[in-house]
């Protein structure tokens, strides 16, 4: 019998010891430098704690009644904005996504459409909203334009990826009947991407509603404006009510859209 105890040690995640120690050092210097360069005003935080308490207590119970008109108006405005923006955005992204599919579009159109998609994806909705509010004035129209534009980047990118993966033989069969280009797209391509198309539309509707809450903060209309006003007036009970309304609508929309997407599949 061997007296020595055999001890098993877990293998380290990173085998190279030098790399392991180097990574730890790197991370700790980074954390230290963050800590040193970040100004944190403890005085202000101490001041804010009672305010935070007030805000948390505002949820029990939230005040739906005092500003109920404004909350309702904001919600409906957000809904109109979302619906119109999603439809407009999708209508524009259909040609863009056809252009951005490598197997359909000629090189020139491909790069042009990819450019449109990249442009629409590179800025956050809020930044776009600031500029559209500046250009078109306050209100839901600017918000709608913003949401439509950001829909293009999302929708056209994902749809064009789906178009690139279609079954070629089906498309070719349609082509061999002597169809025109539009007939070819309509009967050869469109039926193949339709399930994805509907799924993406529902998903984007969901995202657009969430984003519409933010766009209001910079003047794009909708429930965000109501929320921002409530914060500006320090009416935390109303703000809590608005937040609860947003959360519940998002939950309803998300639940229905995921249910519908499953149904379609």
């Amino acid at each position, binding site marked *: 019998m061997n007296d020595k105890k055999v001890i098993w040690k*877990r293998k380290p995640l990173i085998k190279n010891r030098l790399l392991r120690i180097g990574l730890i050092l790197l991370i700790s210097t*980074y954390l230290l430098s*963050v800590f040193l*360069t*970040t*100004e*944190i*005003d403890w005085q*202000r*935080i101490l*001041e*804010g*704690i009672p*305010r*935070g308490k007030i*805000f948390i207590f505002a949820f029990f119970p939230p005040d739906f009644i005092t500003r109920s008109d404004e909350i309702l108006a904001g919600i*409906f*405005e957000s*809904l*109109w*904005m979302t*619906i*119109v923006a999603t*439809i407009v955005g999708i209508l524009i992204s259909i040609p863009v996504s056809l252009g951005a599919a490598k197997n359909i579009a000629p090189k020139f159109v491909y790069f042009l459409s990819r450019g449109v998609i990249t442009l629409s994806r*590179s*800025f*956050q909705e*809020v*930044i776009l909203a*600031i*500029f559209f509010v*500046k*250009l*078109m*004035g306050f*209100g*839901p*129209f600017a918000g*709608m334009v913003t949401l439509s534009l950001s829909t293009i980047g999302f929708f056209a990118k994902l749809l064009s990826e789906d178009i690139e993966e279609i079954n070629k033989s089906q498309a070719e069969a349609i082509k061999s009947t002597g169809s025109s280009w539009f007939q070819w797209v309509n*009967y050869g391509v469109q039926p193949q991407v339709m399930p994805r198309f509907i799924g993406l539309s529902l998903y984007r509707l969901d995202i657009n509603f*969430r*984003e519409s*809450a*933010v766009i209001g*903060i*910079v003047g794009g*209309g909708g429930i*965000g404006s109501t*929320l*921002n006003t409530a*914060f500006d007036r*320090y009416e935390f009970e109303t*703000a809590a009510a608005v*937040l609860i309304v*947003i*959360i519940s609508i*998002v*939950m309803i929309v*998300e639940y229905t859209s995921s249910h519908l997407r499953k149904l379609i599949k």
Partner: protein
Amino acid sequence: MPIIKQKDYKTWKKFDRKRDLQNWLCWFLGTLIFSFCFGLISSKTIWFYVFDSHNEALDLLGRMFPPETNYFLTLIKPIWDTLNIATIGTTIGTLIAIPLAFLSANNTTPSKKFLRPLALFCIVSSRSINSVIWALLLVAVVGPGVLAGIIAIGLRSIGFCGKLLYEAIEEIDENQIEAIEATGANKAQIMTFGIVPQILPAFTSISIYRWDINIREATVVGLVGAGGIGIELDAQIGDLAWAKVSVILLAIVVTVVFSEWITAKIRRFIL
């Protein structure tokens, strides 16, 4: 695919009459809803400004060019702050998301009746509130600055990472756990040797993905005062210093592209 007989020749249509009618009805209803909504929006719009917007846009572009390039030097600190908000926020978010994910996964939750719905509720509410709204809320509580941004990004990341992580936990291979269980391991040991190694790849890719998203979001939380380059953007727009604004926009694009490039690199290196 019904074939229709005309007087002297046959032709076909894609759908039969009933389906055609249904489609038509759907389009009709859709158009009705669309025009109704658009009408409501247009009633709140001052069309004069909208029709004038192209002049305004040209004017704005004229003011934005040429960009004030030497302004870029003052942007280095805000960009550093933005990166920190995203990185530290992601770290905090994922760290909180781990226990929540274990509580809400069907196969690891200790109590299905009470803790699981609670954890799921936390995940959903964190997900449904945008980080800018979280920031708005936190600026009121902890004051303007980087800290509010970090917490806002962290809170928003909890829901995203928690959801993806608990889905990954639910999909693990039960046989491996059984094997660990058969050696007489206790609950904690099953966790560290049975579950964690299986979800580690998912965890890494989720965190990297979220970091990439958070860089984008960290550029805008500053608009409501929560630190980073957004504060600078808000200030310069307020000053109508458009030549500086164009530099900031350029900086944001560069930061976003950089983050995309680095995440692609890391992903290729690790996974």
